[in-house]
């Protein structure tokens, strides 16, 4: 016996990688990176028990393992299925997966207002990204959509249930970060809702993190709502010495003004370090912080326009993996709107960015 921990070989979309036993298919796919990583709307690696619910991360297991090579009959949620040695998985190379995922996206959007133009999450919304990447234009749903009233959950957080996709992330966050969870899911089926039961404010030093984990615009920061569009803001990493949390944050600037403070998010949109309410809601002056430098955001969403510095491309390209076929899914987000321009680096624009800035660059060409 060697002391070297044994690694499992797993092949996803024809790319082979070695991972530690106990790794989920999703995490293995994320190690490969790029579009091999299935979209995940409910799984959150930092929240125990999360995942399995949204079903966007479904993949096909075409070979169970070296020992038991039988394929799995059903598509499985990659976030909650652990790899076996010799497992072979198909994500975007599987017609079944592409078809089922389009179905899941349609279900998620079925009752969704999709009024992104008036939604505060627009630009950093995972559901937006998901629909661009995997959805279909148009809907087959011809009925009235479900709506809910907006609720203030205390001083800082607003809940707009209409936009919620019931990923349960905020419930896990409150459960695992605060000493007493006072909100949860009431009722069931398509009438289930996130609620506090008796209208109640959520107050706990760490409850603000629910805003960051919420993949959509259901939980928003009341100190920031509608003050600005995220893509006009410049994210800057900063820290302070805080007795409650790590104090590591991202400040969102327009000009000299800090519009909001969030936790730092990694390339999968997950919070790196939880932050406390005081850092998030109270410290909105540059003098409260030690600035580290621009935050690099390399997700495909509009928020990242102008921030493509240092992006790493996956080693192998999809055309090679797909035997020369082009992946069916990807719509170039940058073709959608005039302000989504990878060629414009926001950090290089002096002062606040305006829509003119984008026009100017376009016209200059």
């Amino acid at each position, binding site marked *: 016996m060697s002391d070297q921990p044994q690694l499992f070989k797993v092949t996803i979309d024809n790319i082979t990688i070695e991972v530690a036993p106990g790794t989920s298919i999703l995490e293995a796919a994320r190690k490969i990176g790029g579009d091999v990583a299935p979209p995940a709307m409910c799984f959150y690696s930092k929240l125990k028990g999360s995942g399995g619910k*949204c079903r*966007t991360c479904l993949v096909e297991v075409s070979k169970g393992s070296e020992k038991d090579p039988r394929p799995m009959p059903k598509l499985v949620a990659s976030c909650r299925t652990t790899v076996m040695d010799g497992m072979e998985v198909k994500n975007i190379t599987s017609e079944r997966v592409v078809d089922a995922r389009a179905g899941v996206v349609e*279900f998620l959007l079925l009752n969704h207002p999709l009024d992104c133009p008036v939604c505060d999450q627009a630009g950093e919304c995972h559901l937006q990204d998901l629909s661009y990447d995997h959805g279909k234009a148009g809907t087959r749903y011809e*009925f009235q959509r479900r709506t809910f009233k907006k609720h203030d959950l205390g001083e800082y957080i607003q809940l707009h249930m209409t936009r919620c996709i019931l990923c349960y992330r905020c419930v896990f966050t409150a459960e695992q970060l605060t000493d007493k969870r006072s909100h949860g899911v009431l009722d*069931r*089926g398509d009438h289930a809702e996130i609620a506090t039961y008796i209208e109640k404010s959520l107050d706990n030093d760490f409850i603000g993190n629910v805003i960051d984990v919420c993949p959509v615009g259901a939980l928003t920061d009341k100190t920031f709502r509608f003050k600005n569009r995220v893509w006009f803001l410049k994210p800057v990493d900063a820290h302070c010495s805080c007795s409650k949390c790590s104090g590591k944050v991202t400040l969102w600037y327009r000009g000299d003004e800090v519009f909001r403070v969030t936790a730092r998010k990694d390339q999968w949109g997950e919070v790196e370090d939880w932050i406390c309410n005081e850092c998030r809601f109270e410290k909105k002056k540059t003098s409260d912080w030690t600035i580290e430098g621009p935050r690099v955001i390399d997700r495909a969403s509009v928020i990242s326009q102008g921030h493509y510095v240092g992006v790493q491309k996956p080693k192998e390209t999809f055309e090679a993996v797909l035997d020369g076929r082009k992946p069916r899914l990807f719509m170039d987000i940058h073709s959608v709107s005039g302000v989504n321009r990878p060629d414009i680096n926001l950090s290089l624009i002096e002062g606040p960015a305006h829509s003119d800035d984008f026009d100017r660059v376009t016209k200059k060409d």
Partner: protein
Amino acid sequence: MGVKLLLEKAHVEGIRTYEVYRREGGYRAVEKALKTMGPDAVVEEVKKSGLRGRGGAGFPAGMKWSFIAKPEGVPRHLVCNADESEPGTFKDRYLMEFLPHLLIEGLIVSSFALGSNATYIYIRGEYAWIPDILEQAIAEAKANGWLGKNILGTGFDLEIYVQRGAGAYICGEETALIESLEGKRGNPRIKPPFPAIKGVWERPTVVNNVETLAAVVPIINMGGDEYAKIGVGKSTGTKLISACGNINKPGVYEIDMTISVEEFIYSDEYCGGIANGKRLKACIPGGSSVPILPANLLLKTAKGETRYMNYESLSDGGFATGSMMGSGGFIVLDEDQSVVRNTYTLARFYRHESCGQCSPCREGTGWMEKLLKRLLEGKGKITDIDLLWDIQRKIEGNTICPLGDAAAWPIAAAIRHFRDEFEWYVTNPEESQRRNYGLAHYADPREVVA
């Protein structure tokens, strides 16, 4: 008369009480198992009997028992699933209401086999009067030394607790049941881990249906091999069927699984034929989740062979031309019934009962209900039928628990076999509001049995 193993004594005066039940030979199985057999021997008998789970999926009970993990120092639990909320299924209620001691006896033997010292009966909230009956039986059993500490001097301890549900179909799904039993919201868990490894309070747990556990009593009394001789193939023993709908004699019947569907519907011993001199149009043979079959495919398989009331025969032909034994809820529709209305009713049920955890089931069930409502009201479009097909296809197999499948299958089967009826609602919107469709060509071609 067929063999009766469970309901044989159901009509004995006073059988609900301990004295009469004992006088009629009750608790012999406990004596035999605890005094003359070890736990492993009981599991072995149940394996030999070929008993399949009666809750719906038909998984071999003995095999399930042998999967239970036995880590050192960790208690194990048996949970009796008495949530029975599937439309058309009411056999467990009958058993618990009339023969409570049979269930308790089955629970003692099964708990002994599995090494459970605390066993739970999780009962559907709407069965409001039954917990009292069960608790009475438990108290009597305890007073007579069949429960409590050191039962029959064997050193085996057991308590049985009755836990009332709050009226949710989903809490019949075994992992949702476990969550609910723990006092949480009844959301199904994501498997693995399976209950046999981590169930109630993370302890190894077996969940079995009421009827499954009651059947352990005759198995121990007569021996697994004898039990396996009743029935055919892998459908051993007897099965309770709750028959309802347009039949002359709705009720709970115990059958040995050798009789034909035709005999079950038309013979006076069972359903007694279709009510009001009508003809048989369709039937859902195993509870609301299983595919509906038109009369011709119900009585004969696609190959033209007689269809029997057992696991294999009912599922002959797969979903294309067959159905399932399911939980034994036998719902009969006569020629005047509308399959579109029936399908809508079921869709409404599943929409209401979805726990809402996973998106295909949460959103898809609501969408299908709305489309079916529109069709039923004569306002549907012809494309709605294909749309329904596509929605159910995208739910099936893509959800956390089988409720998604259970919502998809009835709709798929209704469209598969009765598409022209759906179309008729679209093309004859006015007439469809005045009368039910009931085209004769679906009906059993035989003359009405007098």
